[in-house]
Every structure is written in C-alpha cells, then in structure tokens.
C-alpha cells in the first residue's frame, strides 16, 4: 500500500500543477461565498453554519465530478495507464492512491472555507457552538468522499473525461433525489431508497449530531465503490 501513497501524492501535486485544479478551488470557494452571504450572513439570524452545511451536497455537485473525471479516464486516454498497470502495483493500490489524491484535494479545497466559522466567531455574539461546525466539516469530507468514489468508478469505465463528468454529475443528482423517489416508490423499495438517501444524514451532521450509523454508511459506501473500481481495473487485465 506504500505505492498507493506514492500515487496519491503525484495525483495531489498534479491538481496544483494544472490551471484546472486552481479553477476548481476558485469555483467551489465562489459557491461557498454565495451560500455564506445569502444563508448565514443574515442580520438578526443566530450565528450558525447549519444551512451552509445542509446545502453542502449541492455545493459539491459541480465540483467533485470535475475532480474525479480525470483520475483514471485521463490515464486511459493518454495511455499512461499502461505504465501504471505494468509496474508492480496492484489494482487496489492504484485506485486507493487515486482516491486518496482526490480526497486530499477536496481537503485542501475545504481549508480556505475555515474563514467563514472564523468570521462568525470574531463578529457574532453569542459565539456559535463548535460541535456542529466540526461535524459539518466532517460531513463535507465524508460526502465528498462518497461522491469522489462514485466519480472514480465512472472514471474507470471510460477514457472520455467529459463523459465521466456528465455521468458522475447525473449519478450524484440521482443520489440527492433518492428521498423524493422514496416518497413515490412502493413501500418495500421506498425503505431501501430511504436507507441510501444522503440528505437526511447531512441534515443530522449539520445539527451537530455525530451518528455512528451515518459515519459507517459513508465509510462503507466509499469503500464498496473503491473495491468496485479495483475490480473494474482488474477486469481490464482479464477482459
């Protein structure tokens, strides 16, 4: 798994070497700024980032596919995947490395948003509670992790980065609309759809509730998607 770390570091550095990485960060910070001004910085309202975090699923919508689309698709398009798959690196190490690189980038992208809680602490009275902010950031990271794993899986399936972006975007939209689908689905299917819904979990996190079931859900779904990516890469060798 040491090779996964090597791949992750190269991947992370790769984002910052290209304008696309900086543009993605700028786009995300712009969206965050708009949400902060319109939903948090409202005179008379209690100092809380609850709405900000509750909207996090939508904020990540255009950003994560842009991060994940090039992870494997770019390697497939340029042919550099041949160099990777003919080195003594397992398919699992390869996808874990790619995933960690992308997750590191999401983490780096979130760092500048710390200015928003800092502003609330500096100017609001009474000061906001720390708990919901910590769970909110944890939620953003976990949500980003699931979306990234989903995008990574799509990226494994095509060498066309644009197609990977579009399919990931629609898959993420599908996940976000699961609660609505659950409302109209037959009862049995509704319970399954509700179980996979992300929205209610995000709301819980933004309230400051750290539910281990939610935590496990995000970790297990991400892990399952990563394993599926490794399986797809292995199938490429054997197809």
């Amino acid at each position, binding site marked *: 798994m040491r090779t996964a770390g090597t791949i992750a570091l190269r991947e992370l550095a790769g984002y910052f070497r290209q304008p696309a990485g900086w543009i993605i960060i700028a786009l995300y910070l712009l969206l965050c700024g708009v949400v902060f001004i319109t939903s948090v910085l409202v005179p008379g309202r209690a100092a809380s980032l609850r709405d900000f975090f509750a909207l996090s699923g939508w904020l990540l919508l255009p950003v994560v596919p842009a991060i994940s689309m090039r992870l494997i698709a770019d390697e497939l398009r340029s042919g550099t995947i041949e160099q990777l798959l003919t*080195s003594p*690196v397992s398919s699992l190490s390869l996808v874990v490395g790619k995933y960690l690189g992308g997750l590191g980038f999401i983490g780096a992208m979130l760092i500048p948003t710390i200015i928003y809680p800092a502003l609330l602490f500096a100017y609001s009275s009474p000061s906001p509670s720390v708990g919901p902010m910590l769970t909110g950031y944890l939620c953003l990271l976990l949500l980003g992790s699931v979306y990234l794993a989903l995008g990574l899986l799509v990226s494994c399936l095509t060498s066309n980065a644009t197609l990977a972006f579009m399919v990931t975007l629609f898959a993420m939209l599908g996940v976000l609309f699961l609660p609505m689908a659950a409302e109209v689905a037959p009862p049995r299917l509704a319970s399954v759809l509700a179980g996979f819904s992300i929205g209610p979990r995000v709301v819980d996190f933004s309230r400051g509730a750290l539910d281990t079931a939610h935590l496990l859900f995000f970790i297990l779904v991400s892990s399952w998607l990563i394993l599926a990516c490794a399986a797809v890469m292995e199938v490429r060798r*054997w197809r």
Partner: protein
Amino acid sequence: MIIVEAIEKYFGNVHAVRGVSFELAPGQITGLLGPNGAGKTTTIRMIVGYYMPDRGRVLIEGKDTRTAGAAARARVGYMPESTPLYSEMRAEEYLDYRARLFGMKRALRRQRVATVCDRCGLGKLATRRIGALSKGYRQRVGLASALLHDPPVLVLDEPTNGLDPTQIVEVRALVRELSKERTMLVSSHILPEVERLCDRVIVMSGGRVCADGHPWEVGRGSATDSQEYVVECRLGDQVNEALLLERWARVPFVQSIERRGENRGEWASYLIKSKAGGPDLREAIAAGAVHCGALVRELRRVEVSLEVVFSRLLAGEDARGGTGEGAAKP
C-alpha cells in the same frame, strides 16, 4: 528469460492472438515483426502483464504473469509504443516517481535515476518538464524509465520511433549494450532496423507466429522457391555462350537463367534462379563456367532482404486467409 506457452487472446469475437509460443534467452535481441493488426502489441502486452492471456501462460524469469503478476512485472522493463508520460512532470521527477512504484528506497532511487539519465543521454534536460521535451528526448525518458529498476527482461515497442538518425544510432548501440546481460524483445515495423539489431526475428501475422529464427535463416527458409545467383564472367571468343547456358541449365534445381543488362565488352552477367528446396548451387555454377572456359569474376547468392521475406510471408498468410480476424486492436 521469457517463456510464452500457447497464449491466446480474444477481444469479444475477435481472436487476436492464436496459440503463440516462443522462448527468449538472455543475451539475445529478438525482434517481433508483423503488419498492423498482426497481434504484436497484444502479445507484448500479455508478456508485460498489461493483459492476461485467455489461454496459455507467460513466464518471466520463472514467474507466471497470471499467478505471480506483481513479481513478474517487477522483472520487466517496458517501453510502450509512443511512450506515454506525464507531461506536467519534470523528467527526473517522473523517474523518481517510477522508482518509488518499484519500491526503491531514497538512496537507491537517487543513484538509479542519475545512472539511467546518464546512460540514456538525458543530461541537463532531465530537469525540464516532459511536455517541453522533443519526441526524441521523451523516447529517452521512456527508455530510462524501463531501465530504472535494472530489469533482467526488457521489452521495447518501437524504440527508435520518431528519433533522428543520430539518435537511432545511439539507441541501437545502447540496446545492443543492454542486451549483453538481458533478455530483450524489440517490436518494430522498420525491417532494416530489425535486420541490423536482432539476433532472432519472430514474424507474426493474423495472431499467429509465421516465421521464427535468425533474420538470415528466416530469409532463406521461407524463400527456398526463389534462391537467386548472380554470375559475371568473361566469355571472349573461345567461349560458346549457348553451350555455357546449356551446361548451367543441366545443373539440378536450376529453374531459369537470365542475362542481365547489356554486354560490357566481353563480360556478361547472368541471374540464375533455382527451384524450391535446392542445395547451394554456387559450386556447380562455377564448375560449369570453368568447364566452358569462362573466367568468373563474380559469383554470389542473392541474400533475400527481410522486407522481401516479410511480404512473401504475409502474402502466404493472406492466401490462407490468416490475417482477417486478428486485425483489431482494443
């Protein structure tokens, strides 16, 4: 040592590689030849572990690519065709990254990167961004990357592709030097290149091996129906040309005799073709000339170039309908 045992590969309904077998020993450069769609790249990709064979197996230094994939891949240095690289990285940074993937420690990495940069003539350009390098230098980075972990097996797909004549000579010399202690497989479609560089050639067509041997053997073995001899001799007044031609025509296996070009004074040149499977006719031709009193100035067997052999082999495969299905690459 590379052992390829009856490997087969399908891509959907396309039977790309059909029961290919060969063994490659260290200290030898083997050329893999074939037209586009012959199954060369698929065979190479199965050897380097990028694809797994559907049937048969590949052993690299005794390690099966199916059951001990990582160990087999760790023993192969591979330079793919068109040398895909990360253009945003600096050359030495890329080589360091590759060395990390092969599990090298920091001190060894530094030493190996410096060694391969020196060996492949990267020099000061090793600090440049790969995207800013010329195709020839990118090719060198690819070769350096293949040599990084000092592998006992080297597989080079079109190693001189895109290089200028000086670089071709340098790479050829480097490949020869490297082959002394390694098993080398070189794929190329430049036939004179293979003739000059390789000790052995394997010709593929339609997913099968259609010839295997020394370039010269392959040339002779498949061209037994067209052995040709050039004779230049002085006829003078005493020599009866008709008698001489009749004498040569009586030599077993002689198929035809042609006079080449115009008379140059009393000197005449002939092209004698033999039938399939015949022995070396030079002695009999010389004896016939001496018997008729002709003075021989030149007598040589025409060496069939690999290009001629190649086109004949492929024509034979086409006649058997062999190239149809293998002409697809994923």
